[in-house]
């Protein structure tokens, strides 16, 4: 479900090598990235999807929560996608415009994915960097805690939490963040262990810079490459994850919606032949996730000096 740890760890080597090569890493990486056709196309696709999420609603003829009462109950005949009625993607089972709702759902799914990944990456990086920097007993205890948490079936705990505290986007972020920062912490710690012996860190320590400042100023920036890759690969997984939560009926509240919720609703009416109700949201879902995967792969390859 989550990006492969070993695969991501590989790019740690890249980050170190970059240190040796000097400042040209980012420039090199950019060139390499733009040479990767799949990654570039995916980036463009992502841009289009984001534009659809942001501005799609403006082109919709209806508000996403507007119910067209003349259509309810007769979706099969009247709610079909049509340019004439202004329901470009048709309507959902409740007589609402699917175009507006898909735009809204894409936005919310992207937001959950990106914010969820950010939460995981920030918490994980800071935690891992701190553990790695202090080393010794602190490191031992902090990483033991990570081991303990990793053995907890968090999906189950998350279901419990959503059931108990009610559903909200905040709960979703918290839950998703809880699950996914652990891997990031491990990776960040591993990298920090090698970085902290570098001269510039030793100089900083010798001149009496506070540890918190060293971590933020000197260590975290050097973890950036790996963090970006990990975050890019995490986003699609967060989106898939949210769709699972939506399936359980624990996702966002009506009238808001997410791609996962729309797909779930669509999959219920699939057997009645209302294919548009599943195909449009599924299309955006698939495109988004494909694109993130390719961009993530492209970034990893770009940051990896071992030319394949």
């Amino acid at each position, binding site marked *: 479900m989550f990006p492969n740890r070993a695969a991501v760890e590989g790019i740690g080597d890249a980050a170190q090598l970059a240190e040796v090569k000097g400042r040209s890493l980012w420039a090199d990486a950019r060139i390499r990235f733009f040479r990767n056709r799949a990654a570039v196309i995916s980036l463009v696709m992502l841009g289009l999807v984001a534009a659809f999420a942001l501005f799609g609603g403006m082109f919709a003829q209806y508000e996403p929560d507007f119910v067209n009462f003349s259509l309810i*109950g007769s979706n099969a005949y009247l709610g079909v996608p049509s340019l004439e009625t202004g329901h470009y993607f048709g309507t959902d089972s*409740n007589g609402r415009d699917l175009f507006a709702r898909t735009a809204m759902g894409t936005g919310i799914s992207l937001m959950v994915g990106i914010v969820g990944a950010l939460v995981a990456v920030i918490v994980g990086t800071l935690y891992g960097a701190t553990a790695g920097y202090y080393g010794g007993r602190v490191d031992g205890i902090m990483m033991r805690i990570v081991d303990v948490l990793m053995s907890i079936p968090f999906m189950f705990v998350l279901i419990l939490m959503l059931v*108990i505290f*009610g559903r909200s986007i905040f709960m979703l972020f918290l839950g998703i963040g809880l699950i996914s920062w652990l891997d990031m912490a491990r990776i960040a710690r591993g990298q920090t262990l090698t970085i902290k012996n570098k001269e510039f860190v030793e100089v900083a320590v010798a001149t009496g810079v506070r540890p918190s400042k060293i971590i933020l100023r000197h260590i975290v920036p050097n973890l950036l490459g790996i963090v970006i890759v990990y975050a890019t690969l995490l986003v699609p997984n967060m989106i898939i994850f949210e769709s699972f939560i939506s399936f359980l009926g624990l996702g966002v509240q009506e009238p808001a919606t997410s791609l996962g919720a729309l797909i779930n609703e669509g999959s219920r009416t699939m057997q009645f032949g209302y294919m548009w109700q599943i195909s449009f949201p599924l299309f955006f879902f698939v495109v988004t996730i494909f694109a993130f995967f390719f961009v993530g792969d492209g970034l990893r390859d770009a940051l990896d000096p071992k030319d394949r």
Partner: protein
Amino acid sequence: MTLRTRLLATTSAVLIATTGALYADGHATHPETGETLASDQSFTYRVGDESPSIDPGLVEDVDGADVVRDLFEGLYNQDAAGNLIPGVALSHEMSEDGLVYTFTLRDNAKWSNGDPVTAGDFVYAWQRAASPELASPYSWYMDLMSIENGGAVIAGDMDPSELGVTAVDDVTLEVRLTQPLPYFPQMVTHGTTFPVHQATIEEHGSDWVLPENMVSNGAYVLSEFVPQERLVRTRNPMYWDNENTILETVTKLVITDENVALTRYLAGELDRTDIPAGQFPRLSAEFPDQANSVPQACSYYYMFNLRDGAPEELQDPNVRKALSLAVDRDVIAENVLAAGQKPAYTFTHWATAGFETPDIPMATMTQAERNEMAQELLTEAGYGSDNPLSIDLVYNTDDSHRSVAIAISQMWKQTLGVETTLANQEWQTFLEARGNGDFDVARGGWCADYNEASTFLDLMQSESGYNDSKYNNPEVDALLAEAKTSDNPQANYDRVEEFIAQDTPIIPIYHYAADYMYATDLEGWPYENFEQNWYSKDLYKIAE
């Protein structure tokens, strides 16, 4: 497969049983209707969730009760129309003061291990159901039946042996009540009153319900039970009326998702399944002889929070009335749900026995008139585009509740400019929020306990534990109290319904219907039974 055909001479049942060897499969015919019976007499139906228990003493849900009615047999059964017919009891006598019932049991009823079913089995079962030791969530039923000392036994103040039920001899059961209860005989068709086999329970404890242990006295015995997956019951050769049982096996499958269940029904794996919300029109057009909808004794409504400290806006009856008027019930019943539900302007279900729906002015208006009136009322109350009303609406997680909530929130928005925040809560959270008054408007549904209007209207009593609105109108309380002793309570019910329409503590939305798909070869289903009590022994499959 061995098929037993039956020849039924009279209702007192002179039976001549023959084995299927005499008649080749498929040539067997139904003794009363003469229809050709199918060679495969198995019935498979879908339920949405596993039942908490299939122990008669503990059973608490409808699906579980369906199973219990097949495995066990109580004093009386119901026929297809819901009338009482003999079960283990042949008849009963009531004392003049109406406090003592004496049942005469048949002497040929047997347990599946061959033991005779005696009055003592009933005494044991009833004492067990009431005992604190079993701690049945349905133990209060013994109190509801007004059995002598019922309440005290449940509370643990008296030994279960003090319960007012005695076996005079093996075939005579005496029940003593604390007050006359005209519908008492109807109450013994309920699973909680069914007999259980003492020796088996004492030997196996709570494991007695496992297929290898269970001894039962119904038309069927439990042959397989995999929780959350399937429960299979097969015909009980020891059953006194086994010769008249046609179905060989009955299988209950737990299928959580109703759309999956429908797919499997259409693939021929099921003989009965629920119709997914909103799909009735399409299915009844495509399969007119399979899709079926009958009235169900429940009312669907939204309740306002009338507690002190609840939002000020909703304490104004005119605001509430405006919200009620703006709900287009026809759209909800005929478009959103579209499965035989009826628009509701009264709380009491229209099909309730002896209840005549009173004339509520709102019911006869057109929706355009209602909308106009709603807008006027809301403007008078001081809300409009410059000062929009905004309310929270809570409902429990469910596809059809969600569709109704979405539609109504849009009706309020489009007609009145009211902003509604929808909050969908999981069941237990929802119950707690509603019980604690943590809502503005909440979804409610109420199903009749018995077939009379007071089962609905008593909810409007200020003291009722189910009055989650906390509606308090002394006049309503007085009317309802008076109705209890009145010979003709209809006038009181009319007045209460008028008060509900006037004060609008709740918005009645629609009256339920039960809609299912039934396989074309399945016959004998008791569609007319308002309580939807069905017995597998009355069902059969015809050859197609």
